[in-house]
């Protein structure tokens, strides 16, 4: 246990175990709460009302149930029977797992409606478009603001003001301008992420080691070359991490974006199931979003370690190999060009 303490690095094997524990511990807590009746279970689900005023399938507080039993005894009628349960808002893990499974395997109830995985893809495309548009504007603007103090003074106060405005409140305006299909949903994601992005990236840019800038200036670099050769490469690993974090924000805005205009996607599904109190489906939807977020983030993190080996975190050998395989199609034209150039010209 030499790795337990402030600043002690964790060796790979315990690290993997800790990662697993991070998920298993909450799952265990949830299971215990759900399956061990005397821990919480504040309500009683009536199985048989007996001679009492309660009715079958009613969920009542335990005290109320005890009162009804005492009353029935006093009246000389059959007491009600029931079992202790949690409130309907906290479904048990197995019910959620089952809902996850049936969610993906049952065809849509309504002819022409999307399957669950199609709804998900639709949500992902809304997120992807919103985030892409944000990044196309926000990344260059953020870098420029961070690098050029004059621009920062001109742009950042207003951006700072607007980022506190609640994006969902622009829903009606987005619909009025952009119609009722996907465009207003994408716009909500853009409004929700763009302004944060500019400030976060500007700040990251300002963190760049000034010595690097000064050295390049001493060597006579122009402003343009400073930006392209020093600032951008210098902040790239941190910029990449910023975008990873900001992508998470985009998901939080999805839940409002999908409720404006024509209803669609995973968050409409969650909302609708909640309205009719099918909480196992609600939990299934939440878990799906969490899983997508986790997987995206892990993949992006791994990509980042391979893309920016100079950022300090060395990728392991198998991960370098996987990276080479994944990026092979992208590098292929480049490799071919190089090979063609280096081949000795066939002599006639």
């Amino acid at each position, binding site marked *: 246990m030499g790795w337990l303490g402030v600043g002690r690095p964790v060796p790979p094997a315990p690290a993997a175990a800790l990662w697993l524990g991070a998920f298993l511990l909450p799952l265990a807590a949830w299971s215990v709460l759900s399956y061990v009746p005397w821990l919480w279970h504040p309500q009683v689900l009536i199985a048989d009302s007996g001679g009492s*005023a*309660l009715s079958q399938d*009613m*969920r*009542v*507080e335990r005290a*109320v149930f005890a009162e*009804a039993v005492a009353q029935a005894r006093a009246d000389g009628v059959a007491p009600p029977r029931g079992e202790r349960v949690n409130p309907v808002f906290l479904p048990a893990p197995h019910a959620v797992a089952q809902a996850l499974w049936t969610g993906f395997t049952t065809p*849509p*109830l*309504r*002819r022409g*409606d999307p399957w669950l995985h199609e709804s998900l893809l*639709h949500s992902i*495309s809304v997120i992807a*478009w919103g985030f892409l548009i944000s990044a196309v504007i926000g990344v260059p603007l953020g870098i420029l603001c961070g690098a050029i103090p004059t621009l920062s003074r001109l742009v950042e106060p207003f951006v700072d003001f607007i980022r506190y405005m609640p994006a969902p409140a622009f*829903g*009606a305006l987005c*619909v*009025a301008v952009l*119609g*009722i*299909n*996907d*465009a207003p949903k*994408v716009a909500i994601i853009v409004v929700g992420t763009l302004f944060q992005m500019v400030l976060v990236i500007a700040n990251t840019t300002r963190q760049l080691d000034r010595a690097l800038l000064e050295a390049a200036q001493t060597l006579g670099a122009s402003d343009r070359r400073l930006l392209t050769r020093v600032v951008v490469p210098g902040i790239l690993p941190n910029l990449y991490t910023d975008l990873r974090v900001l992508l998470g924000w985009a998901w939080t805005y999805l839940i409002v974006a999908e*409720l*404006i*205009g*024509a*209803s669609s996607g995973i968050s409409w*599904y969650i*909302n*609708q*199931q909640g*309205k*009719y*109190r*099918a909480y196992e489906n609600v939990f299934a939807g939440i878990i799906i979003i969490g899983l997508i977020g986790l997987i995206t983030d892990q993949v992006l993190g791994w990509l980042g370690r391979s893309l920016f080996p100079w950022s300090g975190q060395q990728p392991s050998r198998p991960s370098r190999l996987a990276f080479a395989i994944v990026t092979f199609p992208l590098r292929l034209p480049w490799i071919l060009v190089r090979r063609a150039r280096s081949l000795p010209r066939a002599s006639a």
Partner: protein
Amino acid sequence: MLRILTIAILALATLRAAEPLKIAYSDWPGWTAWEVAIQKGWIKEVGVDAEFIWMEYVPSMEAFQAGKVDAVTVTNGDQLVMASAGKDSRGILVHDYSNGNDMVIGRPGIASIKDLKGKKVAVEVGFVDHLLLLKALAANGMQESDVTLVNVPTNDMPQTLASGDVAAVCAWYPLSGQALTLVPGSKPLFSSKEAPGLIYDLTVVDPTSLAKRAADWQKLVALWPRIVAFIDDPKTHDEAVKIMAARVNVKPELYAQALPGTKLLDLAGMQKAFTPTARLDSILGSSQAADAFNLANKVYEAKLDPAKFLDGSFIQALK
């Protein structure tokens, strides 16, 4: 990209051709009933090019106010609220009225509305069930000042009743049912069944579209009695429930519970509702009550003329 492009191209293409009528509808049994005509292919059958768009209630009103759809399904009270915000519309079709789904529910020991004198009542001030409470008090010779109002969001009514801090709560389905289940011994003191017509549910149309495409709107209105007959007929009731449940994406058994507190109107019922009276048995009377209520509760400032927003000619033309 492809998806958005195709949507954009489709949107443009439909703009060029004769546009389909766009109707935004949302999750309330009377409006979800449109789904029967959609799924049974009746809309194509009568030769109307109409696109029904499923939305959340408030966003559907926003889309209508922004002119993105030609018609929307709303309550007669909310039609007035939209009008006060500058969006003119004509109610041409009435689907139903709330028939017991809205309730004033008393805690155990409270036997009647009269028992509420001097006690606290939880209500979402300015919403329909506030109107219901006023109606309940008036029916018992009381007024608002006889009780103490506590402003609580309708979604929290079941827990509010359970807390014991108030003597009664006002809520609509499914919250009213949940409150009754959560607090054994509690009971409905007054429900919309005793004040039928307090809330009518309409399809309202943009006046320009109505003038331009009157024949198409007439055909859609003519479908409604057929839809109601299909839902009410014991032979096809289960199929209707299945179709509607699929629209809201819940199991048919669960959805069937939402249907009884809504009184779907057949042709005679609709014609009666569109015959102007000063009472709640007509939409006009109900809208006048809603207008007075909205003014009293500062939902809007200037008095409206509800008759202007109703057009019964489409219903009256049906045989």
